[in-house]
């Protein structure tokens, strides 16, 4: 039961690779940290693992099978900027239930208040929006969650709150989490295991 990326190479230009021969694997129920410098290609790797990017070399598989491009993707990616991850013309309740109907339990555990549901995205703060983005991504078919700097722009207290909720849900549903950050202390606190990006990617950015 694991999500595997094997020998992944990627570059926006042919002779300028960002990722070279990167391999990573994430078991279900595990919380894996990924630490790397800004601009080293962490987010690109996340996008490839979650099926956002197609023009890469290598293989992404779940339990040995390739991930289907149609239908609900068991690998869900949550971004750094929640305000970009919501359609400004939709009400929050539509955004929340886009994937599947989010249960009341999850709403409660994320501290999403009923009154927020009838608001527009520009009427909520970043931390509130990020809760919605996470609740939406943690649908019942989600097996792996990739958290790409999801709490970087939040204050320490909100960070701790959000991560506590995520870790509870993840443990209960046996979801594998990839925590991407360049904050070592956060990763040490959260993760069972840590991968340093410079160890798995041979491309050096100077």
């Amino acid at each position, binding site marked *: 039961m694991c999500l595997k990326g094997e020998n992944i190479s990627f570059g926006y230009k042919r002779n300028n690779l960002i990722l070279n021969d990167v391999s990573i694997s994430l078991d279900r129920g595990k919380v894996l940290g990924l630490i790397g410098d800004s601009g080293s290609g962490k987010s690109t790797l996340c996008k490839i693992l979650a099926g956002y990017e197609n023009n890469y070399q290598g293989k992404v598989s779940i339990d040995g099978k390739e991930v289907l491009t149609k239908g*609900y993707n068991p690998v869900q990616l949550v971004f750094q*900027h929640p305000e970009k*991850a919501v*359609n*400004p*013309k939709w009400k929050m309740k539509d955004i929340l239930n*886009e994937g599947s109907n989010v249960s009341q339990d999850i709403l409660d555990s994320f501290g999403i208040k009923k009154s927020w549901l009838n608001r527009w995205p520009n009427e909520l703060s970043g931390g509130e929006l990020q809760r919605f983005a996470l609740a*939406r991504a943690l649908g019942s078919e989600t097996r792996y969650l990739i958290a790409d700097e999801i709490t970087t722009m939040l204050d320490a207290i909100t960070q701790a709150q959000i991560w506590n909720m995520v870790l509870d849900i993840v443990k209960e549903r046996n979801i594998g989490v990839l925590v991407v950050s360049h904050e070592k202390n956060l990763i040490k606190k959260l993760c069972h295991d840590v991968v340093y990006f410079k160890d798995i990617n041979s491309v050096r950015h100077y």
Partner: protein
Amino acid sequence: MSTAVVNVNRSLFRGLNLRQKTLLIIGFTSLLLLAIVVSSLFIDGESLSTDFGSKNLAPSLEHPFGTDWMGRDMLTRTLEGLGLSIVIGAFASLISAVLTIILGLLSSAGKTADSLVSWLVDLALSIPHLLLIILISIGLGGGAQGVIIGVALTHWTSLTRVVRAEIKQLKTQEYIHISRNLGKSKWWIATKHILPHLIPQILLGTILLFPHAILHEASVTFLGFGLSPHEPAIGIILSESMRYLSAGYWWLAFFPGLSLLIVVLAFDLIGENLGKLMDPKNAHE
């Protein structure tokens, strides 16, 4: 112009909030335009008949816009002409909007379709606008039908560009990718995510096409390529009056020209104020 409008707003409707003011302006200008169209429909042939007993009269209470060299009341002719212009403008901008939607959606279908659409836009833009209208309307045998189709087939370009760029920009948004990852189909994303962003653009673009279409119709007719001389179009009224200007009959050109300007500005005002209402930043306030 917009600052002037704001100043007028401040003094005219003090006590109303911005939303009510904009709605009031939109309502008032729409009513004005509607009144012109409706009144032009109810004008019978008799009031347009010649009366040589009262020719070339200066503006008076009985004939507010004066009369022409055949004794026809200029107010009636102007109303009739404006009504015709607005109807032609409506047809032309509606057809343009439909073309825009079709081509905009086509451009999002794939790379080849996209280059085809941009090629079509470039092609249409490479020919001078007025020349293209004249070519098409002559090619279709002239008359009202020629002008309508000519004006309609040449105004979709700028709006299509805007819609195409908007779709391109929307498709790179994170929430579109997320939607795909949540298992939504292309059609679902197009109708639920992309279309709500396009509707205001298209609606606004269509309304702002009106003044363009009306002015082009008038200028083509003025140049003699459009409607036939017996139809009381604004362009024809203006081009006929040119011959009488040097004789001192200034009202023949002044009032119809002024009315045309007012109608065009009214459409512009509606478009501008609708834009204020539909701007995503202001819409939810």
